[in-house]
């Protein structure tokens, strides 16, 4: 058991790697009633083409990682939610581009719940019948998202930017793509990505670290995992340019939704380099589009944006892009005005005082997030899968300079790399 102390955050993290390669982290929160645990695999919707060392290369149907997530909850004795409920735990799971996370939250019976979590994720049970049944449920989930304008405009932007990289494929797939999923394809994916060496268990809350490690050690020792070779994720080269400059979808909305963003020309960063770039870009976007900026207030006064106007940055080793926008009565006018205002900022860069304030805001936002065990577990895991250290965020923010932010601004805001996604009334 390794102990990592973060004095500035008043947090202590404990870590241990099991013999089979499973990484386990425990963050005790003295005085907390609840324990929150996530069991995650570094496997998401983008991993649709891969080869495990010594095995055949495979391509699998779109939406299969998410389908697999649904199917894991079924065990021969029934639905695993019932087992969690008997022990007072609230359980769930989610699939994103590059990870699948299973979780529970409980105030009692923590050991029993932790065993349930580990055991059900490490025990696939797929039958022809239960795979078929799930297609109806997931079909309704897909339909639900089809009616969701915010999701449509967001995904439309990614589709406009990326032509080849599977990040542009909807996480749940389509009704057609999931129709080709069988129990055999599910087992192929399961066996490739659910090996303990590709997974991370994070436990946060009112727990004793040594007790958690003891439980996990015994649990894993009783299971017969053979060492697994490296997983090679195969991605065809993505174009530098955006796939489409502008993409429009039709849906019943009260007002058009417009998102725009910039596709990074250079990717491939990992670890602390990726983290620094990620945080620098987020700081830059806040200085450019945040609610206290001149640009924001002007556009608000001109009634081109509303409270829904926001910005985000999504970065991984293989893809990175910004997404900015919200509801607007006139997407073209909004885009023209944004370009005008941003060009002004590009000339002179940001002011030192604004930069210092934005930095404070970011540090405060991070510290506030540490009140939530859920956020800590999710963010820590996400960072870890990218080789970045979640607990170094404050130090990185403190070390970022105005020069770096201004350089990032010039590099990121390249109008040739911009794509636009719009949702309008039919």
């Amino acid at each position, binding site marked *: 058991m390794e102990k990592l102390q973060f004095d500035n955050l008043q947090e202590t993290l404990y870590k241990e790697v099991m013999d089979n390669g499973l990484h386990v982290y425990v963050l005790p929160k003295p005085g907390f009633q609840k324990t929150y645990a996530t069991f995650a695999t570094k496997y998401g919707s983008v991993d649709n083409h891969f080869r495990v060392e010594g095995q055949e290369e495979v391509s699998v149907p779109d939406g299969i990682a998410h389908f697999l997530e649904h199917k894991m909850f079924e065990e021969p004795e029934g639905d695993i939610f019932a087992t969690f409920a008997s022990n007072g735990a609230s359980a769930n799971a989610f699939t994103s581009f590059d990870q699948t996370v299973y979780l529970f939250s409980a105030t009692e019976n923590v050991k029993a719940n932790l065993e349930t979590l580990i055991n059900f994720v490490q025990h696939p049970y797929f039958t022809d019948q239960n795979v078929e049944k*799930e297609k109806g449920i997931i079909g*309704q989930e897909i339909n*639900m998202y089809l009616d969701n304008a915010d999701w449509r405009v967001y995904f439309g932007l990614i589709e406009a930017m990326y032509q080849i990289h599977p990040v542009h494929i909807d996480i749940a797939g389509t009704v057609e793509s999931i129709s080709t999923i069988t129990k055999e394809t599910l087992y192929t994916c399961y066996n490739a990505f659910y090996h303990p060496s590709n997974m991370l268990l994070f436990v946060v809350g009112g727990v004793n670290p040594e007790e958690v490690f003891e439980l996990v050690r015994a649990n894993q020792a009783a299971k017969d995992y053979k060492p697994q070779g490296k997983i090679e994720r195969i991605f065809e080269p993505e174009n530098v340019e955006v796939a489409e400059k502008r993409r429009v979808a039709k849906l019943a909305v009260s007002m058009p939704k417009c998102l725009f963003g910039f596709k990074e020309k250079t990717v491939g960063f990992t670890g602390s380099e990726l983290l620094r770039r990620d945080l620098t870009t987020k700081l830059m976007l806040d200085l450019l589009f945040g609610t206290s900026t001149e640009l924001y207030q002007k556009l608000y*006064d001109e009634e081109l944006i509303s409270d829904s106007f926001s910005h985000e940055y999504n970065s991984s080793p293989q893809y990175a892009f910004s997404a900015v926008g919200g509801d607007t009565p006139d997407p073209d006018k909004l885009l023209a005005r944004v370009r005008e205002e941003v060009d002004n900022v590009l000339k002179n860069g940001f002011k030192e005082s604004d930069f210092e304030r934005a930095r404070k805001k970011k540090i405060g936002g991070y*510290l*506030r997030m*540490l*009140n939530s*065990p859920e956020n800590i577990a999710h963010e820590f895991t996400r960072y870890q899968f990218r080789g970045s250290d979640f607990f170094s965020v404050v130090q990185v923010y403190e070390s970022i300079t105005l020069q770096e932010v201004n350089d990032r601004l010039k590099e990121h805001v390249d109008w040739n790399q911009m794509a636009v996604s719009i949702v309008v009334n039919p």
Partner: protein
Amino acid sequence: MNKTAFQHGNAGRMRIHVLPSKRFKTFAISLYAGIPLAEETVTGTALTPFVLRRGTASYPETRQIREQLEQMYGAGFGFDVYKRGNYQIVQFRMDTINDSFVKSQESLLESSFAFLGEVVTRPVLEEGRFRGSYVQAEKENVRKKMEAIVNDKIRYASERCIEEMCRNEPYRLHPLGQRKDLEGITPQSLYDAYRQWLDHASLDLYVVGDTSLEEVEKLIGKHFDLSAAAEASYKQEKSVRKADEVRTVVEKMEVSQGKLNMGLRTSVTYADDQYAAALMYNGILGGYPHSKLFMNVREKASLAYYASSRYDGHKGIGTIQSGIEIQNYEKALEIIKMQLEDMRAGKITELEMSQTKAMIRNLLLEIDDSAFEMIAYDFNRQFSGKDRSRAELLQQVEAIRIEDVKAAAETFELDTIYFLKGQKEE
């Protein structure tokens, strides 16, 4: 459960509730200001906080307000307007970093009260009324928000169901107010509405963090300009409204998925002895993934991705919501009605009882881990006039037997069926 409890005090007509705690990294502050929900006041009251956030006496420009929040390490500030029982509540929230985590020269707790006091009690005025440009812009903003409700079909269907069900009482009103009222609102009339609201609202201010009741009382006295009007408190009338004949409302819109919502009436409300039984009723029917609705509509029949129920003890209303294939309407309705009948007939297993109790227990225990959840629970006590600790409620839930749930089920009567379906379908 922690043995900590809120300390209660007063500053003028404001009730103050403080929970000193060192467990969190922030000071959590909440101000509740509620007035009876009424057609004449609903729109003005809803619009008021939107204008208040635009400018204060010390920070007349919106950008200054937002810069001030950023200076305070990005203090969280926000507000909500919602219905609770027969009241309309405006809730302001702040979440500010505890100074010990950052190198701040000023007390961030004091800065927070100075800020909140300014926003709520010292708006920027022009000739004794609100600034015209802010009122105009926020009228437009609220109008857009009202129109945007339709964009989220799940929320839209649920609000429409309530609106139809309560069409003959104030509860039909949307918390944001009525579109037809917006046009006539002037800077003077809104200022008058603001004064009315501030002078007559029931005011409850909450703080959770490393502070004391004395300190908070002092800060309120220093930073809030409140009139000497009498303290107001919430009054609950016993709901006597019975369900009418079941009414079915069908609405057509451009949607991929049908939204089936149902509204039920119950005589059991928050302050009743039967409240714990009503909570159990809802939990067994559709509160969780082990509940009847999820198991039968989703897992067995594969008809939906979500199928759940909610219980609003302040209003005495139960709701059911599900997203289904449009042609499966009859089938889904039949299955849901069957679950309601089974509840009434007491067809409930001991396992359903024990699982639901365990889930409710978990829910009540984990409130302790969130400052804002603790605040919300205590506010329910202030609001309903029912002094029932979480420990007491927990005991009552543990003691519930199947016949108690059956008795509670008999008080839930189906009132309205609302179905949102596609344009094309028959």
